[in-house]
């Protein structure tokens, strides 16, 4: 099971691949859309990639609550448990 740091690093790899986000910018307080400039289509791709990478399911209803990197790290951390 991945630690919070490993989850954040994994997310940074996904965000760099899909949306060209610099890994150093992927911090817990950063909002995907407002701060990291990830558009809504890219967000869908990021969610699917995260599901595959961390072997979890993120239902569509939950995606809208994942506003920041910290939200996503916490969600994935809990979903792995």
């Amino acid at each position: 099971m991945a630690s919070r740091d490993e989850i954040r690093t994994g997310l940074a790899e996904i965000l760099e691949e899909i949306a060209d986000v610099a890994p150093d910018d992927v911090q817990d307080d950063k909002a995907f859309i407002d701060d990291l400039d990830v558009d809504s289509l890219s967000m869908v791709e990021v969610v699917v990639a995260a599901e595959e990478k961390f072997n979890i399911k993120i239902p569509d209803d939950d995606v809208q609550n994942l506003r920041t990197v910290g939200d996503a790290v916490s969600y994935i951390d809990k979903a792995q448990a």
Partner: protein
Amino acid sequence: MAVPSIGVVVTGLGATTPLGGDVATTWEGLLAGRSGVRPLTQDWAAQLPVRIAASLAQEPIEKLARVKARRMDRSEQVAVVAAQEAWADAGAPEVDPIRLAVAFGTGIGGALSMLEQDDILETKGVRAVSPRTIPMLMPNGPAAWVGLELGAKGRVSSTVSACASSSESIALALSTCCARAGTT
């Protein structure tokens, strides 16, 4: 049909072809009588009775930003690479976006993306299908990307008519100019 009374000036050329990744190399290859036909060595071609084709000499992704390229079908990548060269060749002029139009022909459009996403649908399920599938497979995708890249807001149109697509797109461009000039 009335003969258009406006003149047409070709101000820039762009190409990425089986002979080269730009106009200069393509022209040089033509003058040298080189063939752009080469063997198809990919796995998917192994079952084909004919395994030669005039495939591109240079992969378009070599000339595009990585993330932008992954959002495009190959047909769109090729269109943007050629259009960027033509635009640069024309001196990348400052143009009022409303007066800038794109007419771009394609035989099929994003067939590769359609096939790839269908494979993903079959193997990984519907959630894994890219949300960019439609903009990648639609036949007006190449024209749309060129329009976005150049900031064209006049008119962005595609002709899809097999081998005549490019000829028809030139005719469409001419009729667009004529309509603008009020000659038809």
